[in-house]
Structures are given as C-alpha cells and as structure tokens.
C-alpha cells in the first residue's frame, strides 16, 4: 500500500475539464513529481490532495485511508507554496512553531524540532527575524522548515523554486533533495521544469491537458518516452519524422535519409508505418568526415553555444531538420562548418505517430 494513492481523480471547473481520470501512487519515502506544462492540471491535483479543493470524481487516499472528508488541517500534510506564504506578522521561529502547536506537540519537543529543522535548512541564525527582512531564497527555506517540522505524512511542494534566480534554484534544488533523503518523507513535487524533475525524482508522472502521459523513473521517462508529447517535453532531441523502411536490418526512411535503428525499437511495428524518431544530444557525436561510418547524418553548423561543461551545437541536416549535439568543449566547431554526425542506432527512440 502506498503512502499516497490517487485513483480516477477527475476535476471540472464548471465546464472546463482540468484533470481527466488521473491515477498514480507514491510509495512511502518516495520522491514523486508531477511534471507538465502550465495548465496541465498538476497544481489542481496537488491542491486537491492537500484538501484545498474538492475532486469532482475519484478518490484520494493517504496512508490507506480515504481523506475526501478531511479538511486540510486534518490531513497531517506539509505544504510548500509557490509564493512561500510565510506569515509576515510572525518571526521565523514563530512561523515554524505554528504547525507544531497545531499538531499538539509538547513545549520541549517544539523547541527541539524548531532548532532541528531551522538547522536543516540552515536558517537558524535568522530565527528572530521577520520574513520581510529575509531574501527570497531564505524565505523559501523557512517555508520548507515550517512544513517539515511536525513531521507530516507527506510533503507537497507547489513549484517552490519559482521566482528564484538560476544559481539559487540549483542550490535549493539540491538541498531539497538532500533534506528529503535525510528526513525520508514521502514527497510530491509539482513543476514544469523537466530538468528539476529528472534530477530530483524517484518517480515522475508526466501530465498534459489533465491527462497522464507517462509514469516512471527518470531514466524510463528520458530514455523510453511513451509518446511524442513526453519525448518532446522532456529533454532535448533531434526529431525526425519518417516511415518504417525495413525490419531487418531495422531502419526508418526519413526525408534526410535512411536512419538505422535498434531492432527492439521496431518491435510491434510494420513496414510503412509512420513513426517519429528522437535522438538525445549526448548520443550524437561528430564523425570523422573522411571516415566510412555507415550511420551518419550530415550538414552545416548553424549555431554553437558554449555552456561551460559542454557545447551545444545545432546542425542543419537538410529538409528543415535541425540536429542537436552535445559535445565536449574541446571539440572546436564553428558556424558554417560542414560536419558529419555519428550515433549508435540502438539509442534512437522510435515512437508511433
């Protein structure tokens, strides 16, 4: 039995269908993420789990019991909001104390927990300050400590890194993950940022337009997207459309040439079937143009972006298709260069159109 079970959850706002028959499970101690673009229903789902909204249909179970009739204060959850929502009229310490008092802790334990969790998010020295005196990142930490202090059954986070600068986001992202591991609390995280989802989660549920697209581990989602929405939304890739040319050897006919793929990828498909191909940037390399490699795409370099740890190179391979290559920064490539691209056919992701 999982800690959180959502079954057949459907939510209407008037005539608008926001969430359509969504089901998923998060196990105890697991870090789950609802990932999707704006308006996909992820926030609505989170708010409903928290008890801030009512489902139109379906059930929500926490620790095995149906919580539909429970108001938010009865559900023993911890929630971190998009805007921090720290109480401006209380000090940091009082903010954290609030939840502890509501959950009936004894005074001694309260003191203990406050120190423990303020320390965990490294904000203990500010305990007597008011949130208004803190920076955005510090406020965010307070809201995390506050939600964890009374050790709820589940931690809900609603895009908590919104509005923070990139460096801070990275920092906090790592910290949240570490804290979650240390505290071992079941977590449901909501975000539209697939990088965040991939780096933090044990399990990702991808949503689009209120419908579940895929549920799986980050690797499963990234390497084996189940449909083109997931393939497009998660991670970058070179995209090609084509038809299955031959099953043995496995190959797909595309406007830029015949692309060899892995045999496994074509399982269940027939010759002539329309498919979409995705190739991850790190699975593509620059081939020696004079070489006789049989699996090359080729073209002209459109753009080179130096990103510190690697370079992202965009190559025009013809027919309006742009290949994305992540390569070591020591490979010096310039805009306008003619290049040949090499890849392992087994890495090609093939999806029915």
């Amino acid at each position, binding site marked *: 039995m999982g800690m959180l079970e959502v079954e057949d959850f459907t939510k209407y706002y008037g005539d608008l269908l926001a969430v359509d028959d969504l089901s998923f499970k998060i196990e105890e101690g697991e870090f789950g993420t609802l990932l999707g673009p704006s308006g996909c229903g992820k926030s609505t789902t989170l708010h409903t789990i928290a008890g801030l909204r009512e489902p139109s249909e379906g059930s929500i179970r926490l620790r095995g019991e149906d919580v539909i009739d429970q108001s938010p*204060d009865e559900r023993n959850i911890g929630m971190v909001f998009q805007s921090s929502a720290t109480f401006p009229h209380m000090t940091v310490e009082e903010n954290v104390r609030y939840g502890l008092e509501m959950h009936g802790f004894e005074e001694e334990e309260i003191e203990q927990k406050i120190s423990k969790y303020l320390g965990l998010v490294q904000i203990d020295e500010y305990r007597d300050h008011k949130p208004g005196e803190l920076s955005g990142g510090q406020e965010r930490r307070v809201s995390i400590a506050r939600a964890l202090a009374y050790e709820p059954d589940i931690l809900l986070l609603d895009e908590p890194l919104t509005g923070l600068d990139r460096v801070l986001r990275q920092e906090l992202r790592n910290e949240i993950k570490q804290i979650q591991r240390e505290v071992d609390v079941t977590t449901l995280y909501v975000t539209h940022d697939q990088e965040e989802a991939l780096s933090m989660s044990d399990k990702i549920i991808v949503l689009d337009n209120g419908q579940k697209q895929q549920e799986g581990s980050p690797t499963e989602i990234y390497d084996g997207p189940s449909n083109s929405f997931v393939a497009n939304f998660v991670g970058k890739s070179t995209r090609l459309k084509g038809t299955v040319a031959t099953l043995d050897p496995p190959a797909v006919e595309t406007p830029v040439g015949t692309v060899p793929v892995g045999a496994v990828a074509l399982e269940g498909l027939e010759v002539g079937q329309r498919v979409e191909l995705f190739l991850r940037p790190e699975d593509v390399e620059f081939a020696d143009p004079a070489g006789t490699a049989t699996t090359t795409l080729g073209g002209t370099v459109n753009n080179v972006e130096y990103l510190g740890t690697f370079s992202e190179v965009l190559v025009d391979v013809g027919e309006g298709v742009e290949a994305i290559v992540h390569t070591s920064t020591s490979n010096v490539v310039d805009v306008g260069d003619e290049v040949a691209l090499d890849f392992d056919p087994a890495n090609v992701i093939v999806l029915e159109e």
Partner: protein
Amino acid sequence: MIIKGLPIPDVVKRYGSPRALVALGLGFLGVAYVVPILLLYWQSLNFGDGGLFIHYESALSGIYLQTLLRSFYYGILTTVVTLSLGYVLAYYIAFRAQREKFLLGLVVLPLWIAYVIRYLGIQLLLFESSPLVQLLGTDFGILFSTRGVIIGLTSVFLPFAILPIYHALNSIEDELISASRTLGAGQLRTIRSVIIPLSLSGIVAGGLIVFILATGSFLAPAILGSPGDTMIANVIQGAYSNFNVGLASSLAVIYTTLLLVVIMAFNSYVNIGRVLGEL
C-alpha cells in the same frame, strides 16, 4: 482639437511650479479655515472683567463636562458596535460571497445620502406610525433615548468601519490562508492567528474614523435622542444660538484640541490621509 501656439505667461514661468500650486491650495485653506478656527481660539478668551479663562471654567463644569464625556462614551460605544458588525460583514464579503462588487456597492450606497435623511428614516421606523411599531406594539423606548442615538450612529457610520476592514482583508494573500490550513490550523484558529492580525491596520483605521465622526455628531442626538443625550456638537450650537459666543467658542476649542491630539497620536501609526483616500 489641439490647442497650440500658447506661450507661457512670464508670471507663470517665474512662479509657476508644483510648489506654488500647493501654496495656493494651502493658502486658501489657511485663509478660509485655519484662520477662522484660530479666531475661535481667540474668541474663547475673555478680555473683559472676570478673567481670561472664564468661559473655560463654565465649559469644563457641570453639564458641559458631562456632555463632553458622554460624547466620548457614545463614540466608543458606536466604535465597538460598528467594528463588531463591520468586521463580520467585511469578512463575509471578502471571503465568502460571490458578487463582491455588488455587495460593496450596497455598503457604499447609503453614504451618498445625507445624514439628515438617514436619521429621519430611523425616526420613521421607530415612530408610532411605522409598521414595526404597529407590529410589535411598542418601540421598546428606543426612540428619543440613548439606544436610539447609538442605533442611529451605528447605522450611519457602519460603512466607514466596513470599508477599511474589507480593504485590509482583501489584501491578504490566499496562499497565507492555505498555508495556515495545511499547517494544521482549523478555520477558527486561522482567523484568530492569521487573518485578524493581518487585518489589524484596517480595524484601527475603521475604528478611528468611526470614533471621530460619532463623537462629533450633531444630528443623531438631535433627532433620535432625549435632552439627556446631548453631545458636544449640540451644546456648542446651543450656546451659539443663545448668543453666548464666548462659551460656544471655548467648548469648540476644547473639542477641537482634544480631537487634534487624538488624530496626531494615531497619525504616526496609521496615516489617516491614506486611509480616507482609499475609501
């Protein structure tokens, strides 16, 4: 139609500036308002025989002192009642109701109607010919009594309590309330620990305005009260109509000075100008 080709007159060029405009406005107010009030201060002093502060001695004795105290007392009563009723209604409109604009409009509507009309309405309600009195057989002695005055003051000044409180409640972020709930606080506890503290400025502002207006009311005691309910405004007018300018002036000075002290004291906490502006 564009107006052009207008050269700026030299006078305006030399002296025209925003500061000059302020001076104009304040100047007018000074000449038309401040000076007359200062004149009252002057007139309250007695330069004939009897001593300089003879009028003040009368003003601060016996019934006049009682009247002053009664005015403050009624002011406080009205403030308490309007804040209690007003807070609940403002809460309802801000958090529970659907058509906020309409409901607020209904609150503002009576403000456009002259006080004299509204007090008349209450008198009509409590008069022997009103349906209410006919139905109940009596008006419980409310008319021409203290209760009548307080009811009148409450009815007339309620909007001044509701609006600042509504404004403060409305500016509380939804997520703060959600946060309080997910942290384990029930509805009532959330109101106590989060909503009320954050709406405190609205409560103080509303209370202050109602207190100031109620204390200085002339019409409520005049129309709805008994002779034992007279307030400071009534005795000032009464003294004047008896040609006792000195007494009227001294009473006016005492009232004005006390009021200014109250205003200045609170001005540091809640800027009244801003609050009134928001109305």
